């Protein structure tokens, strides 16, 4: 029931094409179209957050230069995953500002959408999101907090139940996770998987993170953990590459409410981009 391709289930030699009414559309065309759309959305988003044009173009470029977006076999799923992660981050940050009905529905809907795009990551994010929000809602009574969580989680939980019932692939992924055994013994592969996280970890150590930052970090950590875990099952690193493409977009979302200053964001995204391409090189030379 996953929307589009699932980047975490990838066959390296398969060439997928998108067919509409029997006409085959080359994957690079679909990938290029989606990439252009994503770039446009990023630009508009950043400009509407009063980011100057040069920084907006630079930040958008750094996100789009991620290796996952240029591998057209997985760019469709990477774009969808980016949109889902960006949506969840935006909805969560918006919810932190004010807990009104629209924002509650938006957050619940974005978590449900995340599960449709990537069931495992979406489910993990749904589980940890209340924890990320917990500290900011300390002033509420226990009853009020329960009501808030029930309202946020109602639609995502129903979506998860539907996916479990309807999606056989998701069930096999969860089963595989429960009996996780690494099929890639190489240290190089593990380093390649985790290398792009290094800039983010360094940034975490350097500056303190407030509630909005915790949201961004938790969304990113959920993505990384599920991607690495699924990679260990799937013997492919491409999903991790996709995860870092998404992470870059999520970091950009963090720029818009002035969570990250533009120079910080530029530095972090540049470092993540360099690490991602290094990761791809490491994997390729390991094969």
């Amino acid at each position, binding site marked *: 029931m996953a929307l589009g391709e699932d980047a975490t289930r990838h066959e390296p030699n398969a060439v997928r094409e998108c067919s509409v009414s029997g006409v085959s559309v080359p994957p690079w065309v679909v990938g290029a179209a989606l990439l252009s759309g994503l770039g446009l959305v990023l630009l508009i988003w950043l400009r509407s957050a009063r980011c100057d044009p040069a920084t907006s173009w630079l930040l958008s470029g750094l996100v789009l230069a991620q290796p996952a977006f240029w591998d057209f076999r997985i760019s469709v799923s990477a774009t969808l995953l980016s949109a889902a992660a960006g949506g969840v981050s935006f909805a969560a940050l918006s919810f932190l500002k004010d807990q009104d009905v629209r924002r509650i*529905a938006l957050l619940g809907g974005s978590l449900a959408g995340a599960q449709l795009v990537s069931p495992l990551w979406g489910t993990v994010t749904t589980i940890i999101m209340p924890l990320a929000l917990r500290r900011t809602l300390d002033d509420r*009574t226990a009853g009020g907090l*329960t*009501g*808030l969580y*029930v*309202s946020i989680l109602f639609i995502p939980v129903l979506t998860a139940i539907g996916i479990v019932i309807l999606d056989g692939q998701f069930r096999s992924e969860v089963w595989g996770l429960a009996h996780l055994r690494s099929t890639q013994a190489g240290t190089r592969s593990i380093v390649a998987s985790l290398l792009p996280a290094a800039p983010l970890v360094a940034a975490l150590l350097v500056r303190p993170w407030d509630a909005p930052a915790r949201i961004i970090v938790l969304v990113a950590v959920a993505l990384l953990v599920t991607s690495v875990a699924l990679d260990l099952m799937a013997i492919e690193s491409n999903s991790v590459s996709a995860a870092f493409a998404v992470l870059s977009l999520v970091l950009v979302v963090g720029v818009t409410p002035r969570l990250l200053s533009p120079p910080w964001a530029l530095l972090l995204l540049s470092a993540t981009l360099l690490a991602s391409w290094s990761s791809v090189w490491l994997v390729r030379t390991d094969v």
Partner: protein
Amino acid sequence: MFALDYALWFDFLLPGLDKLGIPMPLGGTSNHFRVDALRAIHGWDPFNVTEDADLGIRLARLGLRVCTLDSTTYEEATNRSRDWLRQRTRWLKGYMQTWLVHMRSPRALLRNAGVSGFFGFQLFVGGTVLSALLNPLLWTIFILSSFINLPMVGISEGAHSISLVGLLAGNVLFAYLAMLGPYRRGWLDLSPFALAIPLYWLLISAAAFRALWQLVHDPWRWEKTPHGTSRMLSENVP
């Protein structure tokens, strides 16, 4: 559940109808009228047990606007199931009467209320009754189809899917709206009770069938809701 029901109706649905300009079936707790408007529509219908709902529709048909005000009148909820059933029976019977009266001439209703008003009336008055009456039927089809082969008893296989979709969509939507309903009042601690909406809706269905029975056999019976019972009960508690 009553608080959730009212919060949804008065804090979301009625303001929504106001904003969309759809005829509003009034509730009788607090209404304020211009006397000349009341006289123009010849007052309340004495044969309708929800005369206020009917009044709202007739005002709209005359081209008069009904709005919601940003004020609250608190009302005592029935705290006995017997009283709740009687009250809900009367409301649903009144909705049936209102629908039947205004649909005697559908073209006139369409002309007076406009397209959005006409379809809004079908949805909020007719739809309320129809959904309550259909709900047990959908549950019955769904439960039966889970255990027996429907075509063998003359029901198509698609009935299972239709009943499932209807139940899921209806109950999920109703529960979710009821969950969000109390937010404006800050009554977040009531939201989890919205998970019991499927059961509450079955109770509403029971009232609907009771209403249908009364519509045929005793249409003008008015089962007055007793008020002050909460105070009486709390006074009697040692």
